[in-house]
């Protein structure tokens, strides 16, 4: 076995059980401790809406909400989320109806390729929880950890403003 494969071998380490409430549902899987939260979600729970972008804590495509705080799920080991409450992009739509934030992003072309979108949607949800009517400066700060290479952010700003207005009405 070459060195790379040795380092990547997933068989020898002791697995541990990780349980969490994901989008309101109790979920669990036995994983190696070094499993990242994003892999736990994607590979073990089959929730592939959360994307792996840079895998270096930069781009924010993997952003989810854990216990009321945002986290880049590529930068947390899954066991650290034990017993936690997690919201992923799959948890936004309810009863087949898109969340106001999702509708606003679709309406305002707040995405093109869509790769960064799951992370941006969760970052927006958190931003609007803290600042229901955010200023431009607050929007800039709120999504500074999310990189989008398509939109140039202008339409993302429009989407967030529209989502804010819609959510205030409801």
């Amino acid at each position: 076995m070459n060195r790379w494969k040795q380092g990547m071998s997933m068989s020898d380490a002791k697995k541990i059980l990780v349980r969490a409430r994901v989008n309101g549902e109790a979920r669990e899987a036995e994983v190696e401790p070094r499993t990242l939260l994003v892999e736990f979600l994607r590979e073990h729970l089959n929730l592939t809406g959360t994307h792996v972008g840079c895998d270096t804590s930069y781009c924010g495509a993997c952003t989810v909400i854990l216990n009321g705080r945002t986290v880049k799920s590529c930068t947390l080991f899954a066991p650290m989320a034990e017993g936690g409450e997690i919201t992923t992009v799959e948890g936004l739509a309810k009863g087949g109806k898109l969340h106001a934030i999702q509708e606003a992003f679709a309406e305002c072309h707040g995405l093109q390729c869509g790769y960064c979108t799951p992370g941006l949607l969760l970052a927006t949800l958190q931003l609007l929880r803290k600042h229901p009517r955010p200023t431009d400066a607050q929007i800039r700060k709120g999504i500074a950890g999310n990189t989008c290479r398509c939109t140039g952010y202008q339409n993302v700003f429009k989407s967030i403003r529209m989502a804010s207005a819609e959510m205030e009405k409801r």
Partner: protein
Amino acid sequence: MYAAPFSYHRATSVQEAVKLLQELGEEARVIAGGQSLIPLMKMRMARPTALVDINPISSLREIETSKGELRFGALVRHADLEHSAAGATVPIIHDCAAGIADVQVRDQGTIGGSLAEADPSGDWGTALLALETSVVCFGPDGQRTVPLEEFIQDAFTTALAHDEIVTAVHVKVPPKGSAGAHLAFKRSAPVYPTASASAQLTLEDHNRCKEVRIVLGCVGLTAIRAKEAEAALRGKLLDEKNIRAAVEAARAAADPQSDMRGSADYKRMLAGALVKRAIGIAARRARGESVEAGHEYVGR
């Protein structure tokens, strides 16, 4: 990217954390927010054989004020400090906390973890050196309090023994008439700064500098107290000439390395510029003005 394999252990008390560290040996590491350690582990620059997760220790999440001291539990997150009363009282703490990386990292990263990691590009080591700060460590022989100057010894190296953990960070509340600023320049929000500078000033007679601390970040193996720059201002008027002398001394104190964030020369100039701006903002704040400051980056 996968970290090298490790065993994972959860501690629910500081005593249990220390016991686990003793049992697991020198290759075990404590994990708090993980925002520095996990990237290092994924790049295999750190390869602990075991992790002791201290997040379940809820007593380490408290912020208290006692006897003129702000006491931050090791697990207090940057975001908690950003929105804390402590940040409102001591602006340098707000400047630092509100600008570290991005929302996601501030929501997870902790003040204790940042100091224990001792990354030369970290912000807390720089900002807190401008104040009187001590680090509370807990180990097999009980508790000891180490001044921040002695706690951080080198890049990624602290006074912590392998079986000790940081439990709290104590900061003396600056006297009336004293104020500071922590400024940093970074290429974008999520990255470490290219250079940073903190200044804490005590003024008398409106424009005379009674006491001062100037600290440089990201331009050496640890945060650097620019003592000659401080001497250029202590007891003197805050006029253009004296500030220029302080900035020159600060530039000379910087010991940067060229890397992807910029050349050594560029970082030296940047550090000087940040010191100049930090002194100006600290002075305005010391006179009672409310000034916004912190991390600067493209798109802010």
